[in-house]
């Protein structure tokens, strides 16, 4: 009755769904930083609203305010028309706002249902788990969030864990869901599934705020887009269908981003890296590489494409000496480096940009200086006869800080305080400054913002120009296509094929071929079929 009355009273408004969140003039200061400078943001019922901006633009701060983690210094928030003032995430969830953070907050040894019930007042004393398993199963079915309620969280893939986080919020009655960079940790097919889920949620009348710095995704999933730059709104509630990537990128970084990288034609030189019929196992002792062979020459960037988890990680580890292979070998300048030690490879000119910057690439509590000397602390002039010359090390770090534009007040700063892009610069500075013959770069731009990605890609191209051999392992096909001279595709530990990327860019036909290889069709088959059809 009520609903029909209101729609009768204002028939025009029904075309424009009501606002569920209205943030006005939000100001949030941190020491030395104005994170949110009079930010306005609004969310309508049943929309996916993307919040776009570089790292440090203030997206997460704004959403942490909305989800009750921070209190704003100024500004008002209205949720479903009511003025609210949250002092904890509990208040926010009571108002129907739930945030799924980038880093999951789950207990690995507990089941999905246990994790969802964690911290709630119900059930009170007796855990009637099987009953709740059914409730969770129903909920997951309703939103297409496929996950077994009885599975332990540690058994789940990252994508499934994310679904648990979403279920947690839905179970708590959230109808406004904030997703903080949800795709950063997902494989491409998991991203597709997530998008389907988000769409099914808005069909149910829920609303989603989607924080991201990836233009392509935002264009794909969002109905409207708000862009933040340095704590200010540069575009509010743009219709996603009426904007372009170039326009968004400009508003995000404040200048035109060059999407076409300046890649000069260059003849590849002698073979630097040879991988011959390599077999290796993953951490669980299952076969991860099944006969991988490839070569990389000096002065070329060779891409390795593939969906996450097809052996890329293990291949990078075997090549750099971090993992033993069970058969086959890796040669660097004709010398066997596989099954030796990381130091053996490093001394022969191997550089490695690891996938995990904070857990493997750096020691977060140590300073920038300590981190950049980590691979050369034994060599003069930094070390002489086992003694460290810290003054020399500091000078070295200062030089790298200048040359690689590492934005940090002092080289004595612990690297845990650096942003993702700066952390990657620290790693690149360390790896590249040694003038490596071979550089293995794994996901070098993952999780970085547009400006940082460009800088990192430029550095990789400079290495190619300087005559290094570069093996680029990435899940971003676009990045591989714009940087690589040649491309291998890996699927379930086997190389599906090798293609040359023309200097003028990849044709659609080529991209399709790569796509087929990534899903398990060997190149000979693809080309064989083409031949028979002709």
């Amino acid at each position, binding site marked *: 009755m009520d609903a029909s009355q209101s729609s009768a009273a204002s028939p025009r408004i029904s075309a424009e769904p009501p606002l569920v969140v209205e943030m006005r003039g939000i100001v*949030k200061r*941190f*020491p*030395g*930083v104005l*994170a949110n400078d009079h930010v306005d943001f609004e969310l309508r019922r049943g929309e996916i609203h993307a919040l776009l901006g570089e*790292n*440090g633009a*203030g997206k*997460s*701060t704004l959403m*942490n305010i909305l989800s009750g983690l*921070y209190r704003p210094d100024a500004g008002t928030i209205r949720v479903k028309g009511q003025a609210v003032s949250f002092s904890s995430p509990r208040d926010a969830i009571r108002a129907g706002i739930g945030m799924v953070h980038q880093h999951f907050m789950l207990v690995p040894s507990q089941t999905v249902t246990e994790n969802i019930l964690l911290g709630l007042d119900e059930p009170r004393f007796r855990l009637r788990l099987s009953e709740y398993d059914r409730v969770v199963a129903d909920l997951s079915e309703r939103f297409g969030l496929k996950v077994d309620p009885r599975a332990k969280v540690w058994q789940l893939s990252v994508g499934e864990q994310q679904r648990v986080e979403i279920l947690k919020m839905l179970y708590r009655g959230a109808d406004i869901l904030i997703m903080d960079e949800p795709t950063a940790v997902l494989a491409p097919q998991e991203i597709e599934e997530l998008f389907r889920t988000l769409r099914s949620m808005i069909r149910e009348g829920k609303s989603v705020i989607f924080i991201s710095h990836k233009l392509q995704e935002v264009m794909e999933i969002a109905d409207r887009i708000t862009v933040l730059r340095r704590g200010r709104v540069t575009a509010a509630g743009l219709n996603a269908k009426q904007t372009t990537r170039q326009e968004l990128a400009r508003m995000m970084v404040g200048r035109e981003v060059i999407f076409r990288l300046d890649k000069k034609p260059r003849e590849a030189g002698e073979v630097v890296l040879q991988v011959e019929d390599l077999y290796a196992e993953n951490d669980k002792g299952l076969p991860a590489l099944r006969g991988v062979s490839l070569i990389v020459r000096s002065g070329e960037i060779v891409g390795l494409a593939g969906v996450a988890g097809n052996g890329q990680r293990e291949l990078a580890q075997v090549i*750099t000496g*971090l993992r033993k292979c069970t058969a086959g070998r890796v040669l660097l300048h004709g010398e066997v480096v596989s099954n030796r*030690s*990381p*130091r053996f490879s*490093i*001394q022969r000119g191997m550089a*490695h940009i*690891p996938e995990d910057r904070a*857990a*493997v*690439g*750096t*020691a*977060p*509590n*140590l300073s920038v200086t*300590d981190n950049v*000397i*980590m*691979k050369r*602390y*034994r060599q003069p002039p930094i*070390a002489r006869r*086992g*003694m*460290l010359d*810290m003054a020399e090390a500091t000078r070295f770090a200062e030089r790298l800080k200048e040359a690689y534009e590492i934005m940090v007040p002092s080289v004595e700063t612990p690297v*845990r*305080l650096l*942003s993702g892009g700066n952390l990657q610069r620290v790693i690149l500075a360390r790896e590249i400054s040694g003038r490596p013959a071979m550089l293995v770069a794994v996901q070098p731009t993952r999780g970085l913002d547009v400006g940082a990605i460009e800088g990192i890609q430029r550095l990789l191209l400079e290495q190619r120009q300087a005559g290094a051999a570069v093996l680029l392992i990435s899940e971003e096909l676009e990045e591989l296509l714009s940087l690589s001279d040649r491309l291998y595709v890996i699927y379930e530990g086997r190389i599906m094929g090798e293609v040359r990327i023309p200097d003028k860019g990849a044709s659609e036909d080529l991209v399709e071929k790569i796509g087929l290889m990534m899903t398990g069709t060997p190149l000979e088959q693809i080309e064989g079929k083409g031949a028979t059809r002709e």
Partner: protein
Amino acid sequence: MPDRAEKTSTGHIGGVLRSLAESPIWVPLLAILTAMIVGGIVIALTGGNPFAAYAGLLQGALGSKKALSETAVWATPYIFAGLAVALAFKGGLFNIGAEGQLALGAVTAAWIGYALPDVLGVSIPPVIHISLAVGGGMLAGLIWSAIPGALKAYTGGHEVINTIMMNYIALNMTSYLLNGPMKDPSPTNVIARTPQIAESARIPPIFPGLRVHWGFVLALVVAFITWWLLWKTTLGFEIRTVGANPDAARYAGISVKRIIILTMAFSGLLAGLAGAIEVTGLNYRHELGFSIGYGFDAIAIALLGKTHPLGVVLAALLFGAMRNGATRMQFLTQIPVDVISVIQALILLFVAADAIIRYIYRIKAPAERVVLTRGWGG
């Protein structure tokens, strides 16, 4: 960036005050103060006068040449053992086994001190004999801690469990030796102790008439060497890197296994040194019960000293002063020395659970918790 800034913000306090408030020395200092206050309340509740008690403590610890000498005597093993635990912490390892390593160091030094001249059938010149005794003690400690180090490196067996087990073996072995083969054979002796070490194996006192010996100076020198090792050598860099992130260390080409074993070996060496110096510098023999608790107090000292060698020296001096002053306090006020144990335990409690101190004195937490050791899985 802003997310991180949040954690270090202190609201309305200015920048200078903030950096002062975040300085690492505040928590230990305030922990000591708070423990003294709580300890004072305990004294008052048991009918004593806390002010008289603390005056007695102070007088006993620092009030005379003799008091100062005794404080240094107490502090000496604390410094060595505290450095042992702190060094292991820097490498990401928790050496709970200092107690056992120390006991074996003492037994070994004592044997070399009293029996070696007879075994060799010659008298040994003092400098050489002292060096042999002290070196033997160091070696014993080193071997005893390198074993759990190797177990950690090659099997992943956690060093906390293994050093505790090694403690049981070492302490029972010591007890057997002191009651059996190494027992002082003189007919009047009923105590589980070794014979006195030879004159040539004794570290002389610094000042005639006072017990403080050159071992105290050696402790300060060793503290400096430990600092130098950790921050000025490539090996120290490797130890700190493995302690900060073993995965990054391996990736950077550091042999993590080698560093784990070496770190534990050095740690045990320092603990063994603590025992050897007690024997050669102070007691001139080893007796069951002489070294009880040094290895465990060392954990408190390493934590109170924030695992920095200078901090360890200061913490060891404080603990030494309190242990030493306690006797005078009891003599003057009849308050039992056990109160000092209570205060020391409270200091450790407040340093370990620094959230209490931060809450009481409104000190903001550091940007990130400093991880001393890795979890059971690591």
